[in-house]
């Protein structure tokens, strides 16, 4: 698995707790969390399906530092809406999309509130990191507001409008 954010590839400090004993930050599922799973040390990540209910997840906002939303395929856009809803509900930690997203979706993912993307084995070799970073600059500005999005076309228009029209 390869992890990248808007700056490029990054190391993944988290491990899935289901994969065995580990001393650092661990990722658990909602079911494992309900069973009382806790990492031996450090931060806690929560992995959820894209059908998860916001109410079931937001109860854990205070105890988790990472939420991982699973994308079963790149064409399944439910994760985008779920990310948007989690941010709206006040999640301020790291939000990760995990699955076979493609570079052309990177800007969408960030705009919906994701910080990083976790890709399956082999994909980054086919779609190198420059393609992911390049996808972020394909458009100077979008029409829609997004999560921590610096500027939109509507804002640029307002800035450009003559004083009298403001």
């Amino acid at each position, binding site marked *: 698995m390869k992890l990248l954010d808007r700056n490029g590839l990054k190391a993944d400090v988290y491990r899935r707790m289901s994969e065995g004993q580990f001393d650092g930050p661990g990722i658990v599922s909602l079911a494992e969390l309900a069973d009382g799973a806790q990492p031996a040390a450090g931060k806690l990540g929560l992995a959820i399906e894209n059908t998860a209910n916001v109410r079931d997840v937001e109860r854990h906002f205070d105890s988790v530092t990472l939420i991982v939303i699973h994308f079963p395929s790149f064409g399944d*856009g439910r994760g985008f809406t779920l990310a948007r809803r989690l941010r709206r509900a006040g999640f301020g930690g790291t939000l990760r999309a995990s699955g076979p997203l493609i570079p052309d979706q990177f800007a969408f993912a960030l705009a919906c509130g994701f910080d990083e993307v976790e890709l399956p084995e082999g994909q980054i070799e086919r779609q190198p990191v420059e393609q992911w970073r*390049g996808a972020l600059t394909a458009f100077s500005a979008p029409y829609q507001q997004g999560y921590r999005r610096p500027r939109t076309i509507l804002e640029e228009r307002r800035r450009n409008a003559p004083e009298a029209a403001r």
Partner: protein
Amino acid sequence: MYRYDEFDERFVRERVAQFRDQVQRRIDGALTEEEFRPLRLQNGLYLQLHAYMLRIAVPYGVLSSRQLRALATIADRYDRGYGHFTTRQNLQFNWPKLRDAPDILELLADVQMHTIQTSGNCIRNTTADQFAGVAADEIEDPRPVAELIRQWSSLHPEFAFLPRKFKIAVNGATEDRAVLKAHDVAVRIIRHAETGETGYQILAGGGLGRTPMIGKIVVDFAPKGHLLSHLEAVMRVYNAQGRRDNKYKARIKILVHEIGLPEFKARIAAELEAEGPSFRQEEVDELARIATFFARKEYETLAPHSRPYERARAANRDFAQWADTALFAHKADGYAIVTVSLKPIGGPPGDMTSDQMRAFADLADRYSLGELRVSHAQNLVLPHVKKDDLFALWRALGEHGLSTANVGLITDIIACPGLDYCALATARSIPIAQAIAQRFADPARQHDIGPLNIKISGCINACGHHHVGHIGILGLEKSGRESYQITLGGDASWNAAIGELLGPGLTADETPAAIERLVDFYLAHRLSGETFIETVKRLGAGAFKGAFAGVSRHEAA
């Protein structure tokens, strides 16, 4: 009409560059065919039966003469010298090459056009009343709202990978000319019953395809400034909860149907509540900016009645017959809205040659302030014609084979491309339309029959809107043979209704005769002044079954 500012312009240019890069990455192997497919589709490029097809967005059906000329150039340079207008007010080219697509997009960008989201599981090109801004029965011009939706839906980060395609229509007149109830979502500009302020009624869950459903009102009244938040709430509920396990059950109509209207409305309400205040000042500001582009034209001050027009009518029966079908009441005195039929008898419905496009662009400049429209019925509209000019316009149209006097009549048939082009089709559509048109070619007979909509689809996906045709024809394939099912009583207006199946399927050869039997039955049983659909509604489709059965002999054999 709307003109791109520097930001729209930049956005569309960047989109062209992005697609060029996507094509290159596909060739390099960075993108698999499966990954490339939705990217190609969201740029309007379909793989058809014989070749690629490129679908060009005509936002809410509005075109300038300059844009039509550019389309003619593309038709000559990259296609076979013609284009096809669709039931979604778009234009399709049937023979472009994949490697030419980025260059075509560049030519389109030169005239402020694009192919963004004309296909794929995303929000498609927004359609509207083809008489927007000029119709006498209008409450408010729907084009600013449609343009607002065009911008808002373009590369919307959350809604680019929906369960299925998503079609939005907007109407601002009392009469529904945009088939609102057959859309995933429809926005109807209405006047509030008590306060009189204009706002938006929102419908959802309409659609044709294999499970036709009539759209239902999900938001009774959203005041101005609240539209996009309401649309986003509907989209978010659909994106999260629309079915993804079966593409035939993935449209929003199935979600609305399965959970029921009250539950669907409750989910929208919950979504709106979670989002917080639904009023957006930037929506009001942006709408005001867009509206300046659609300000009322500078019409000449004219008398309501035109003497030259009346004289020409009296002197020329053919002209009068054409005018009876082609004209619609204009807001401004002394002007008319002219619908130009793209349904010549025996021609493929909605097709136009590049020569016709150029000639039509010249006529639009000369007689209609350089503007034209595309209707969902696959015809063109000249929206600002002086009544004094109508006779000259009619003669000029005639020189280019564009004066067929059949708008709204039985030979003004909507037909999908069918098996002649489409990879999904199970039967031919265009030849059926041609055969029916030939059978009813006599203008006097057509006028006697009066308003009658025949709509033909070459497969169950219903691109030809057959469910809402007064007479609907659905082409299927049964044990290797084409089989045509006939429905009766469909209605695409605000009184939308799904047609009723009359009986077993017919062969292509039998179909025109069956249609004729239905029409003859109507002529024999109509009351004075009663239209075809009125007679069907009065008597019921069942009353026509006897007439229909007379021709389905092969089924009994």
